[in-house]
């Protein structure tokens, strides 16, 4: 790392620390305000619902500031709030943050402000009334320009304090929040259950959508072909009675229709679970996918053993969906699919050298990928800067 880079980095840390200490000071101020209704509630139980509501609100502000998961569903009844172990921890945080947090915030901000106050002292000290011409600490009285330069040096000292000391103060100020406002193990489990319930619903939803798609494909595709075959055969029989020479043409059409029905049936079956996936392996299935993609695709999929069928099917359809997107939208000249397995996760990465700028939330293809992956507790990350390259990475837990 070059010196310039190190300086820039340290400056960034300092600026961020000042920001944090300032916002921390703000929440400590809010915490101080909430202390009053809490105090009233101790004497006057009727005021408790209001006080506890404020407590949770200010705790949630702090949680958001610290980037903690809220984890606490909004409580409606007083009994539920007071019975909640989280409430006790919130009260402890409130007292700490309103006092210690407040002073740290004030101290940290003063240091930052004094960079300017003392740093510029040599420039303005003559305009200050003689009795007030002191550095920020209020002592000693400055009478000479040289003395003023020394105060300016103190400003530089504050700058170093801001860069190196204030970040530590931020940590200290945020410690009670990080310790006490983090969801406890039980609440974390509650969150996890809520999340599982949601993904399970998504899984069932994806399942229903899938069934609907299959039903459509069979009714509107295959069945229509077979009806056409039946109609044409009926017409051929009538033709045989009337003028046998015209029957052959109709029968040829009937045969075409039946072949179409077979082709469509094959496509439907393949879309449910590709035979190559069940008969061979995920690597082979993805290789055959890549072979049918109009964009040249390199495949690196060396997998030891097999995963659960549903996970492999998900990976396969995600790859299919992603390659369809590559072919349709990216304008790429080449793409690659990499599948690796590490312990109990399957990682699938599809990259193309196309124009990028894909919208992670738009586009049904990506939504489909996300939904399929989330149904299996997986995650999807996409990066697609304008100008490319676009990368879609899907991580699926696959058990052992």
């Amino acid at each position: 790392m070059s010196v310039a880079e190190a300086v820039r980095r340290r400056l960034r840390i300092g600026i961020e620390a000042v920001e944090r200490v300032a916002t921390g000071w703000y929440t400590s101020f809010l915490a101080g305000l909430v202390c009053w209704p809490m105090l009233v509630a101790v004497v006057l139980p009727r005021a408790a619902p209001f006080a506890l509501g404020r407590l949770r609100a200010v705790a949630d502000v702090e949680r958001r500031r610290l980037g903690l998961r809220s984890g606490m569903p909004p409580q409606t009844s007083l009994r539920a709030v007071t019975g909640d172990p989280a409430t006790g921890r919130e009260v402890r945080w409130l007292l700490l943050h309103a006092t210690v947090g407040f002073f740290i915030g004030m101290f940290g901000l003063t240091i930052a402000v004094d960079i300017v106050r003392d740093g510029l002292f040599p420039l303005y000290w003559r305009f200050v009334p003689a009795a007030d011409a002191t550095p920020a600490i209020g002592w000693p009285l400055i009478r000479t320009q040289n003395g003023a330069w020394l105060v300016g040096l103190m400003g530089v000292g504050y700058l170093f304090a801001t860069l190196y000391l204030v970040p530590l103060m931020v940590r200290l100020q945020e410690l009670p929040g990080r310790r006490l406002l983090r969801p406890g193990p039980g609440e974390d489990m509650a969150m996890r259950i809520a999340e599982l319930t949601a993904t399970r619903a998504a899984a069932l939803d994806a399942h229903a959508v899938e069934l609907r798609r299959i039903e459509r494909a069979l009714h509107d595709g295959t069945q229509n072909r077979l009806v056409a075959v039946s109609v044409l055969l009926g017409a051929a029989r009538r033709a045989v009675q009337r003028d046998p020479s015209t029957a052959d043409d109709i029968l040829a059409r009937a045969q075409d229709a039946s072949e179409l029905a077979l082709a469509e049936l094959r496509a439907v079956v393949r879309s449910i679970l590709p035979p190559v996936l069940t008969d061979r392996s995920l690597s082979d299935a993805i290789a055959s996918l890549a072979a049918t993609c109009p964009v040249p695709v390199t495949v690196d999929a060396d997998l030891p053993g097999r995963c659960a069928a549903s996970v492999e099917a998900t990976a396969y359809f995600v790859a299919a969906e992603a390659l369809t997107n590559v072919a349709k939208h990216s304008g790429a000249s080449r793409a690659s699919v990499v599948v690796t397995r590490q312990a109990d996760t399957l990682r699938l990465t599809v990259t193309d050298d196309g124009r990028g700028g894909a919208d992670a939330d738009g586009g049904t293809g990506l939504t489909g990928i996300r939904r399929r992956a989330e149904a299996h507790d997986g995650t999807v990350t996409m990066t697609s800067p304008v100008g490319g390259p676009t990368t879609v990475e899907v991580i699926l837990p696959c058990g052992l």
Partner: protein
Amino acid sequence: MRIVIAEDDALLREGLALLLRAEGLDVVATTDNPVTFLAAVDKHTPDVAIVDVRMPPTHTDEGIQAAVEARRRQPGIAVLVLSAYVEQAFATELFTQGSGKLGYMLKERVGRIEEFLDVLHRVVGGGTAIDPEVVAQLLTRTRPDSRLERLSPRERDVLALMAEGLGNAAIAEKLFVTDGAVHKHIRSIFSKLELSPDDQTDRRVAAVLHYLRDEAKR
């Protein structure tokens, strides 16, 4: 007979047109969506429209809506709705505005050309055609303690054919009995179900359908 076809599946649409033209019927327009279908109905004022239930854009019940709309615009037009599967709700929606000149059939029946042509003629002639599957659904959905229990097996057969829209002569032919016997059965059915007897086929179908629907709902 001038015919307009609305079917979004190209192969089936052309197959139907080929079949009907080979039978000497006049297919004046083939369309693949409700909008062009209604435009063709306005333009050609056909005798009968053959409509697929599932059409773009959503592939759900566009055909039913289009059929109802076509009949609203041109009350004289006969409509035969074709469906990949029978859904009693579709039939109910279709037959709420009376059952004359109206048919609802499974697509697969089209292959039986004679029966299909028979249905087509019946509908154009002012009658009703309801797929036996729909009738079977209605009959099986009725509860065991209903008045239908009072019917003899033969009377149930007659009731089913009546609900499909067949006239007395056709019922007699299907069941290998005389016209008089059918007449007697029908009178007996109507009195057992406490319906007022009616000899006009489509009104009779409406009464029977209405009765069966109520039974199924109960």
